[in-house]
């Protein structure tokens, strides 16, 4: 057998107060697609950052062999990793918003000589790569004009352009809708045929099973084991990840929706700064107390716009009404919305959800000062008490409530965001991509929580790009299509195919399904 | 020929109390003689001052009066004016150019001497503190030069000891207060006299002295005979100020300007070489000059020199003095 392209031997990496990787040993075979699964904070991204030269050689112990040679990156060796044929798509978007798609794809290795960049070559090569992998992106537009999903495609295109020997994808699909995921799967298969090795990190087990050859599972910074994909099952992987058996992906719940609380009728809105350019048109739907309304749709179909408009933070309403328990309301800001009992857990936790440099405590209480502060002064004891309870309920993993949020793993950060808006005790809770980048165990917790809230009579709107999640959790599903309602489907009549048909605007086809 | 004469007045800054006052005087004088005076202040920026002089040339002024921020830097502006045949008068501060039509001033070194003498009148031995002007102002150096001419012999004799020698950034009174507080602390109040360089900084220093009960006991000098300074003199705090009768300098400037503009001869000017004026051997050429006397003013002659001549208003100066102790109104 050929020697493995990559081999980890007893790799240990610690951060102050945390052992991120503990004595990790495993190997990656040439030409295979290796999946890596593990709960939030298991150490997956940390290991990949070692490979990419982000954590240099002297910051960890153990040895990593690449093509039989030990890796020996010094500080600032990111370029070196790249030259050796290691390409990586980081978990968090790493794009320069003001720069064009082309510039981002070639950032740091632009064609040209030592000093001067050859723009013509850069753009023609960009176009070439996009054409080859059939990715549709506007090469000359600033990245800031793209939605999160398409930005993620830019990241992927960047990694593809590197002609790498080994490609590492750290949760590449967390912001992608089904269609784009399929594009990515197709690309990966092509690459595999060309002999490129790939490490694929994802919390979406369906994808892992679809594409990988083997799966390595991490838990608490250690390798639990490696399985050949064809010889294992989702349940087994999940059990390895969470350390116990989990038979159900979605918790069972019997829900009895009660009266209508939120009713939207003929809502239309324009883009905030481009009056006359419609963003949403003629949207009507309602949500009942104790009900979960799923919102599905393709990337860019306007799901986030819809819910943030309800939350008063997007667009300019041009027509229609929003009623809360029958009374028409006006929402001009998040403040208004929260006063009317609407809370929104936003989709981009780093940008919209958290003050990363502050403690868990201050993040959780930020949206709920009314509960702790009268006219001016904050009752810190009450604040601490209530936040502690919330963190416990959500089982946030952290040494203390005073830990800075940026030091938490993605999943735990998401829990903090959820805790913050749960504490505001909403009548209508909107969750935009609530489980993005979250491990199965934590997802299950969040689903349970949603069920519990619904049972307590909260009306829930959940926007999600993961169809299984939408199908698994919703009572009814609203499908968005180009800023309009493509259709609203009851759960028992819904199938993946039908939702896809509605999302792509094939209404008649959908009716036949 | 009917067009009224247009005089340009370029001022270094408006933070020095003298300049806005003199601007007003000159404006009025010019108007009285049927001439128009336009003025600009350069905010302590020599480049900006040159720019402003350029802009005046453009407005068709017939003659320019310059209060230079920087005597050397303004020279190129004078030359530029010369190219357009516009005569320039250096006012108070020398512009180092032989293209000058005239330089009229008080003797700045004499100002320094007068300040030192005024203080020595009260105390002629002991610990002296020197409070220079802005370290970036050329005149401040000249004042210091004059002060030292008078003090040096006594220093050499050992009668006087200079225990502190500091400069006040921007001529700012608040800085002077702080510096004086620190000097008094460092010397445990054993200061016998203060030679300060103008009224603003002297009054700032007096705040610190007042807090130590030294105001009025320790002599301190000033300059410019400002209203605030003269008021302080009659209240027995400031010892002396140097009265430079700008009401002589200003009319002279305007008269001269108008004569230059009409191409009439100007009398009373005496040529000095630039080398004489600046003590700098590298400068050649000469400038027609006229110097005015400066007068040391203290409590004894303030009424006579400053108030009676109308330089400062009676009420401004005596407003806090009980009626019975005031000199008679004019």
């Amino acid at each position, binding site marked *: 057998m050929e020697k493995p392209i990559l081999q980890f031997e007893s790799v240990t990496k610690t951060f*102050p107060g945390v052992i991120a990787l503990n004595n990790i040993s495993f190997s990656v075979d040439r030409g295979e697609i290796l999946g890596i699964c593990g709960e939030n904070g298991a150490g997956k991204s940390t290991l990949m950052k070692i490979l990419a030269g982000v954590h240099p050689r002297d910051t960890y112990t153990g040895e990593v062999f690449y093509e039989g040679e030990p890796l020996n990156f010094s500080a600032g060796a990111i370029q070196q990793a790249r030259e050796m044929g290691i390409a990586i798509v980081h978990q968090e978007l790493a794009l320069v918003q003001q720069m064009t798609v082309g510039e981002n794809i070639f950032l740091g290795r632009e064609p040209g000589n030592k000093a001067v960049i050859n723009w013509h070559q850069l753009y023609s090569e960009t176009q070439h790569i996009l054409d080859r992998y059939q990715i549709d992106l506007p090469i000359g537009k600033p990245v800031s004009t793209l939605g999160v999903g398409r930005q993620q495609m830019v990241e992927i295109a960047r990694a593809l352009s590197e002609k790498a020997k080994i490609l590492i994808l750290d949760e590449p699909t967390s912001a992608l809708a089904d269609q784009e995921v399929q594009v990515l799967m197709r690309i990966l298969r092509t690459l595999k045929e060309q002999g490129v090795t790939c490490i694929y990190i994802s919390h979406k087990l369906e994808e892992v099973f679809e594409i990988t050859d083997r799966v390595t599972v991490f838990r608490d910074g250690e390798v639990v084991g490696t399985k050949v994909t064809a010889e294992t099952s989702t349940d087994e992987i999940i059990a390895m990840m969470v350390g116990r058996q989990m038979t159900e992906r979605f918790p069972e719940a019997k829900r009895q929706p009660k009266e209508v609380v939120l009713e939207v009728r003929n809502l239309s809105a324009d883009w905030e700064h481009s009056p006359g350019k419609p963003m949403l048109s003629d949207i009507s739907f309602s949500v009942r107390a104790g009900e979960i309304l799923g919102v599905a749709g393709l990337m860019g179909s306007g799901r986030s716009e819809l819910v943030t408009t309800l939350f008063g933070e997007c667009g300019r309403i041009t027509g229609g009404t929003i009623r809360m328990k029958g009374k028409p309301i006006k929402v001009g800001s998040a403040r208004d919305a929260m006063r009317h009992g609407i809370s929104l857990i936003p989709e981009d936790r780093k940008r919209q959800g958290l003050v990363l440099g502050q403690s868990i405590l201050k993040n959780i209480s930020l949206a709920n000062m009314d509960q702790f502060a009268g006219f001016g002064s904050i009752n810190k004891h009450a604040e601490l008490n209530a936040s502690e309870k919330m963190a416990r309920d959500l089982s946030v993993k952290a040494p203390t409530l005073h830990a800075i949020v940026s030091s938490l793993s993605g999943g735990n950060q998401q829990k903090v965001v959820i805790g913050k808006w749960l504490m505001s005790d909403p009548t209508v809770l909107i969750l935009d991509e609530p489980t993005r980048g979250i491990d199965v165990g934590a997802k299950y917790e969040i689903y349970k929580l949603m069920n519990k809230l619904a049972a307590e009579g909260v009306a829930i709107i959940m926007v999600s790009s993961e169809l299984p999640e939408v199908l698994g959790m919703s009572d009814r599903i609203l499908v968005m299509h180009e800023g309009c309602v493509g259709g609203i489907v009851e759960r028992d009549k819904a199938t993946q195919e039908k939702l896809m048909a509605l999302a792509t605007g094939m209404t008649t086809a959908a009716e036949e399904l | 020929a009917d067009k009224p004469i247009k005089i340009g007045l370029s001022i270094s800054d408006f933070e020095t109390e003298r300049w*806005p006052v003199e601007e007003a005087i000159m404006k009025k004088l010019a108007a009285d003689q049927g001439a128009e005076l336009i003025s600009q202040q350069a905010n302590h920026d020599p480049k900006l001052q040159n720019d402003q002089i350029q802009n005046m040339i453009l407005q068709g002024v017939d003659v320019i009066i310059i209060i230079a921020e920087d005597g050397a830097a303004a020279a190129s502006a004078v030359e530029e004016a010369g190219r357009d045949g516009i005569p320039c008068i250096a006012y108070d501060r020398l512009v180092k150019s032989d293209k000058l039509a005239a330089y009229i001033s008080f003797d700045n070194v004499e100002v320094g001497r007068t300040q030192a003498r005024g203080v020595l009148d009260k105390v002629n031995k002991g610990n002296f503190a020197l409070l220079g002007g802005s370290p970036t102002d050329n005149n401040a150096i000249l004042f210091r030069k004059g002060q030292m001419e008078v003090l040096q012999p006594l220093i050499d004799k050992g009668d006087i000891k200079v225990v502190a020698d500091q400069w006040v950034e921007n001529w700012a*009174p608040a800085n002077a207060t702080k510096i004086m507080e*620190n000097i008094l602390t460092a010397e445990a109040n054993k200061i016998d006299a203060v030679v300060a360089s103008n*009224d603003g900084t002297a009054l700032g220093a007096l705040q610190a002295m007042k807090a130590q009960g030294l105001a009025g006991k320790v002599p301190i000098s000033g300059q410019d005979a400002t209203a605030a300074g003269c008021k302080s003199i009659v209240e027995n705090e400031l010892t002396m100020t140097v009265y430079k009768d700008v009401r002589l300098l200003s009319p002279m400037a305007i008269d001269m300007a108008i004569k230059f503009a009409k191409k009439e001869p100007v009398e009373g000017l005496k040529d000095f070489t630039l080398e004489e004026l600046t003590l700098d051997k590298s400068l050649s050429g000469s400038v027609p000059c006229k110097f005015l006397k400066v007068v040391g003013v203290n409590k004894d002659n303030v009424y006579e020199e400053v108030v009676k001549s109308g330089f400062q208003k009676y009420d401004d100066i005596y407003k806090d003095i009980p009626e019975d102790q005031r000199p008679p109104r004019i």
Partner: protein
Amino acid sequence: MVSKTLSNIIRNNLQTYTMILALVFIWLLFGFMTDWIFFSPRNLSNLFRQMTIVSFLSIGMVMVIVTGNIDLSVGSSVGLVSAVTAWLQAIFLPPLLQQWFPGISMLAQGTFITCTTILFGLVVGGLIGVIQGWAIAYLGIPAFIVTLGGMLVFRGGVLGITQGKTIVPIEDSFRLIAQGYLPNSLGYAVGFLSVGALFFWLFYNRKQKASYGITLRPFGVDLAQTLLFSGIIMAFVYLMNSYRGIPNPVLLMVVVALIFTYITGNTRLGRYAYALGGNAEATRLSGVNTKANVFQVFVLMGLLAGVSGIVLTGYVAAGTTSGGVNYELEAIAACVIGGTSLMGGSGSIAGALVGSLIMASLLNGMSVMNMPAFWQFIIRGLVLVLAVYMDVVTKKRRG
């Protein structure tokens, strides 16, 4: 146990401690170079008094910077307030009073003028804050620009009001604000009251915590801390009383600092400012009226510029054209030396005060040492950079 908690406290405040260490080092150096005159009660009294005017500004500046903004206009604002307050009492009010209440006693007139002037000074400061805050928060113009513009506009205002002349006289009662001292007995009373308050707080806080079921720190630690602070307070009062008593402006500064420490730590206004500086969008989405918050912070800054301007007028007993020039840079430098991050989101009032004290000590020490002007500039610049470099290094160490 006790020692562990203490070492935790120390670690968390390392930044402030680093700067305090730097301060001690600077002081010792100056002490050594000035035959220990630097440490005489009289000089320390001067030093604290000299630092006050910029300190008011740096206190406000901390909040401004924490929200991710900056205020370049404070120097000019101080100048404007100073000019207005001088103009009011020297030129505007006296004839008015004489006209309305002919024969009013000197004392009554003085008191009335002083009070009115203080009020107006604050109003002018507040207005400056309102206008700039409104442009920044509601019109969305970057603070850098609004306040750079403000700097020019207010400087123009100063010139317009003073017409280039120094404005005097200043009322005696008004001068007391900056030049007066608390009688020794009153000083001690203030000291004892503060110590009393500290002890009350010690017990009250522990009781409160207990009632919310929060685990308490060992009593010994809390007590040690309280005793330490009490000691510092009494030593300070003693020191000041060995000269002439606590200077009025120093007392004012301490009170203002306490108020603002409370605001930053215990009110919504403060909490929101920090959150906003950390992540404005997330804060807005949490239902916080971020615009109002920025606005309020600038109004507070304006009021503090008002206080600073009033104290300046009292200090030099005149309104001058050059009042306040460059104070904005000193205030900002003080904040940054004291650990305020220019990126927003972090900073403390205590730190800013230590920063102000360092800057003031340099000026004071060098002038007591009678150092040539150009060296003073150079050393101030180098120390500023060095102080922050130390901070950068220790922060890195901590990880």
